[in-house]
């Protein structure tokens, strides 16, 4: 024992730290040598990290380390592995006729899982993560479809889009009846009220139903149909149901008729591979509104 240490615990014979807390003293039991050697070895080992892993920030980047490890590369490897694991199944999905996928539980589960991920990455910004849509962006859960809700129609819309500029895109325009001077303001108000009456909504006082019907027949029926039930070939919505993409109040309808509505859906055939688009179509169809 060192000469300073006259403070030896009588019971254990071990030196104390010399600290005294109301008569309670702490034994200064030494570590075993292997323990302290392990501790030093850990310090040496830690230096190894600096060398083999990215460690030191530089002005515009960082040291890459001898192993060349990066979390980003790790993710890329994992994604590649996932593609490899799913490979056969995705091929099977690509080959299966669209109508058969929902009948095969395994394919349906794969298509829904894949579709949900792809939807979140590509479609959610407009349609929402749950595909509930927003004003001007259709809710894909309901049974009202601008361009048709069968599997084939949904897939076609995803592939080529609407008014997307793609050669095969859905085309069809809601004219700006007011801005382009086709209809005058009072006529627009009248026909807006007529459209509201089609789905049983209230009309404003002094509204002339006959006049409204005539304006509708002359200007709107060519696309929306005589009864206002719409036309999916042209993306003309059904005006007699309870679902309104932009809103059903008089002011919104006047705005719609005055300036027109021409929402754009991009074409995805250039960005997503065919089996992914297939999965996406099955996913959207399975949300509940599919025909």
């Amino acid at each position: 024992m060192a000469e300073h240490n006259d403070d030896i615990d009588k019971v254990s014979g071990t030196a104390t730290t010399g600290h005294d807390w109301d008569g309670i003293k702490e034994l200064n039991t030494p570590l075993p040598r292997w323990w302290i050697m392990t501790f030093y070895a850990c310090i040496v080992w830690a230096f190894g990290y600096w060398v083999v892993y990215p460690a030191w920030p530089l002005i515009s980047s960082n040291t890459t380390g001898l192993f060349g490890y990066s979390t980003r590369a790790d993710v890329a490897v994992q994604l590649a592995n996932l593609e490899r694991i799913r490979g056969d199944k995705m091929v099977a999905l690509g080959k299966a006729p669209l109508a058969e996928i929902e009948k095969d539980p395994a394919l349906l589960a794969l298509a829904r899982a894949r579709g949900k991920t792809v939807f979140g990455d590509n479609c959610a910004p407009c349609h929402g993560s749950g595909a509930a849509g927003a004003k001007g962006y259709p809710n894909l859960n309901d049974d009202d479809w601008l361009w048709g809700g069968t599997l084939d129609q949904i897939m076609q819309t995803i592939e080529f889009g609407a008014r997307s500029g793609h050669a095969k895109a859905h085309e069809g325009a809601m004219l700006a009846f007011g801005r382009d001077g086709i209809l005058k303001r009072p006529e627009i108000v009248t026909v807006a009220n007529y459209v509201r009456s089609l789905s049983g909504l209230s009309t404003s006082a002094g509204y002339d139903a006959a006049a409204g019907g005539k304006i509708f027949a002359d200007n709107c029926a060519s696309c929306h149909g005589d009864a206002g039930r719409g036309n999916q070939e042209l993306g003309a919505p059904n005006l007699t149901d309870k679902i309104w993409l932009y809103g059903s109040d008089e002011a919104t309808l006047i705005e719609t008729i005055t300036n027109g509505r021409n929402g754009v859906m991009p074409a995805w055939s250039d960005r997503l591979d065919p089996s992914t688009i297939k999965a996406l179509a099955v996913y959207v169809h399975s949300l509940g509104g599919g025909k």
Partner: protein
Amino acid sequence: MTLTMKQPVLPLDEQVEDYGPLYVSHKKVYPQSVRGTFRRIKWALMAFCLGVYYLLPFVRWNRGLGAPSQAVLVDLPNSRFYFFFIELWPQEVYYFTGLLIVAAITLFLMNALGGRIWCGYLCPQTVWTDLFYAVERLIEGDRRERMRKDAERGTMKLQRFAEITLKHSIWLMIAWWTGGAWVLYFNDAPTLVKQLVTFQAPMLAYIWIAILTATTYLLAGFMREQVCVYMCPWPRIQAALTDEWALNVTYKYDRGEKRTSLKKANELRALGETAGDCIDCYQCVAVCPTGIDIRDGAQLDCIQCGLCIDACDSVMKKIGREPRLIGYDNDINIHRRQAGKPPIFRAVRPRTVVYSALIAVVGAIMLYALMTRSLLDVNVLHDRNPVAVRLSDGSIRNAYTVRLLNKRGFDRVIAIDVDGPVNSTVHVVGADSVTQDRPMIVIGRDQTTELRILVTAPSELNPEKSIPIRFRVTDIGLGEAALATDHFVAP
């Protein structure tokens, strides 16, 4: 603790602030062989524990075609745990919680009755260290020989070199077998053995065998008592658990002092002075696997293996004195004997009764839960985005993700009954059944199936607020049913 303190040489100015040595060097322990009751118990328990560990993976259990036939199997890729007739799913890990509670209280009970039974007889560190010591003793000889050979390290002969090589080879083989047995619990044992031998087993198996070979070799061959003294928290916990009634390996100092040689003791007695039964032969220290002197009293380093009892008994027998100068005893009885009263041992006392009752209660709850657990289950998750959808005719639709679990070993036809809003219609996406009112689906054995179920309430019956909805699934063959509740809400 008998440790040699080593004082590192420090510069003078640092010595002022010196608080003692930074470390103590390791003092090697050379336990001597011993015969007796506790040694026999230890051999038997060692054989039992190692036998169970090494051979259990090879025990078969028929679960039907296609299911694993291994009695005890942790099937990580498929997230299943098999234990004879029990098959557990990941969501049933709470059974392990119950098992751990029972295990902990059993240790408490053992401690209240007989001290560190776990440390001395059952702990893997003790069992493997004991085995490694047996190998060492067989090859290098007993305590004195080993000490002599270690002291002659500088002049190593060929025979000595052969001994050391042989010892480490056998140690490594035991360690390797230990690691090998470990991986067999995670895969079909006979198949994996074949793969391992032909070098076709997965890399992970070899890595785990290497890791466990290394830990077994290091912990049982080199670290030994250091694990118990420095690394393990259990001695500290057990020290806190012991009480005045618990039987611990004890030197019975009531059998007299001083401790001195047989001859001197006789001389002292002849002079009318007192002398103890202990003749200071140090046999208890020689056989101790942690190298302590039990006569110093209860101590952290004592794993209570009872080998000093055997050593002392053989000496007492030779000198014609009562055995059990060292034995399972407690302070209460030492004081009673000193006071001339007969010793009493009280196994039934509040502590042990409470521990036993807890074990019984937790065990019974687990058994009940296991016996009555449903082998068909249903979980329902209401769509959150959107919560509800209004359809073109004004009706309201809610969508639910429903997961069905079939924990039986055969395929089953499950009917789904939905009890929600009046006149609502139910549609299962992708699994249309002939009977639209009562969708039926098939679930493969030992599997789960996720369904998307759409419930639509007609517009004239639009619920104003959320109303409860119940999903009842029924195995149409067995009649087994499960129920889940949720809500149907309006937008």
